[in-house]
């Protein structure tokens, strides 16, 4: 069974280097920007070329790569890669009429730049892959590691995700209706549901292997589906739970990617209403904002929660009556069509 070991999360909240989920940082101009550390482990000459998404990913990976043996693979999720560098490169093409272009922005903008930089810095020539499947990029990366650990039970892998806000793409998405036109704070995101949400970003890295000893959480199962039918989402979840939980049992917490966008509400409602009153419901996107790999932030939260058995009050939507929190179901929905379920459990100590 795959286990999550130490993890690092660079997010808009207090997640690294110290974790404090008792407070919430407010969004500005409908953005929740990640709070970056100084990255002492990244050489200055390398750091100055890095865009934010690459910098966050590399910075989050370094503490893990120092602690654990060289990974047998690095599996990174990013839907968009270095968006700011991508726009800079496209602007260069336009400005200089497809003439002389510099390599920096192009190299940094490619989706696999984060995984490549981590491999170069650590001189690691093992399996190195980047999953880019929009709102399911993280789930596909996670599934990849789960399958790799089935094939190579003794191996250890670095799993991660990273995505950044880009001003240019934010404006395109806002015009398309995915972000709110009117100013809204993350702390009031759920008060007046409307079309659109707030933007977010962040990076998550975790060490995974099959060793229970010293593990922080157990990775039970992951399931993804593309659909615009809430009924099919419900059927998928029912099957997912029946296949992965003992008969008649339910998770101790449902952690949803509710983001204040009314178009997502039917899916969130149908998932939440499936469970009886005893099951608590929490949500996470007022902490991290909306981005393609936001479910990785939920994964990081779930790992923290199953370790302490306590759900930070600022996350709770419905209290429920469970006395412990050992099994968490994450449900995420990206733009009405990409749905994912992840089941994470506390580690059974024998």
């Amino acid at each position, binding site marked *: 069974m795959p286990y999550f070991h130490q993890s690092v999360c660079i997010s808009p909240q207090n997640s690294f280097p110290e974790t404090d989920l008792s407070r919430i940082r407010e969004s500005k101009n409908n953005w929740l920007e990640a709070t970056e550390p100084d990255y002492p482990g990244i050489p*200055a*000459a390398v750091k*100055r*070329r890095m865009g934010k998404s690459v910098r966050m990913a590399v910075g989050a990976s370094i503490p893990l790569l120092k602690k654990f043996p060289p990974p047998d693979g690095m599996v990174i999720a990013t839907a968009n890669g270095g968006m700011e560098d991508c726009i800079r490169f496209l602007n260069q093409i336009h400005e*200089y009429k497809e003439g*002389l*272009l*510099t*390599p*920096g922005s192009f190299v940094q903008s490619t989706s696999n730049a984060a995984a490549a930089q981590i491999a170069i810095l650590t001189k690691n020539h093992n399996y190195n892959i980047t999953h880019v499947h929009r709102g399911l990029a993280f789930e596909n990366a996670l599934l990849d590691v789960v399958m790799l650990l089935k094939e190579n039970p003794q191996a250890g892998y670095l799993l991660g995700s990273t995505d950044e806000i880009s001003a240019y793409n934010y404006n395109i998405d806002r015009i398309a209706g995915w972000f709110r036109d009117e100013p809204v704070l993350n702390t009031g995101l759920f008060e007046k549901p409307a079309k659109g949400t707030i933007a977010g970003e962040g990076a998550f890295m975790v060490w995974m292997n099959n060793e229970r000893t010293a593990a922080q959480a157990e990775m039970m199962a992951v399931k993804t589906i593309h659909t615009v039918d809430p009924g099919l989402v419900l059927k998928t979840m029912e099957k997912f739970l029946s296949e992965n939980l003992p008969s008649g049992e339910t998770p101790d917490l449902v952690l949803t990617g509710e983001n204040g966008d009314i178009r997502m509400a039917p899916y969130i409602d149908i998932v939440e209403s499936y469970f009886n009153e005893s099951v608590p419901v929490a949500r996470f996107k007022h902490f991290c904002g909306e981005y393609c790999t936001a479910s990785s932030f939920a994964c990081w939260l779930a790992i923290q929660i199953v370790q302490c058995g306590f759900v930070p009050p600022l996350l709770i939507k419905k209290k429920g009556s469970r006395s412990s929190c050992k099994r968490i179901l994450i449900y995420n929905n990206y733009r009405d069509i990409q749905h994912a379920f992840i089941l994470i459990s506390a580690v059974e100590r024998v």
Partner: protein
Amino acid sequence: MMETAELKQQVKEQIIHFLNLTTVKPEDITDDEPLFGEGLGLDSIDSIELIVLLSREYGITIQDPKEGRKILTDINTMVDYIEKNRTK
């Protein structure tokens, strides 16, 4: 025509901007300090960025890499070459 001192200041600002040297100020770069290896610590990718800088900002095309290495030794050599060869 721009004075040499003024041009040196401009080139330093352009280097900082093109290479994203966020922690360096123009006054931190001395005119005879090596740009590569020791000194400013630039590398081969930076040399491509600087060659593009010369082309875009001054209309100078460098074809021979050996020639490029001599031109990009320090601020003095860069500015000297710019003054003699600029087309814009």
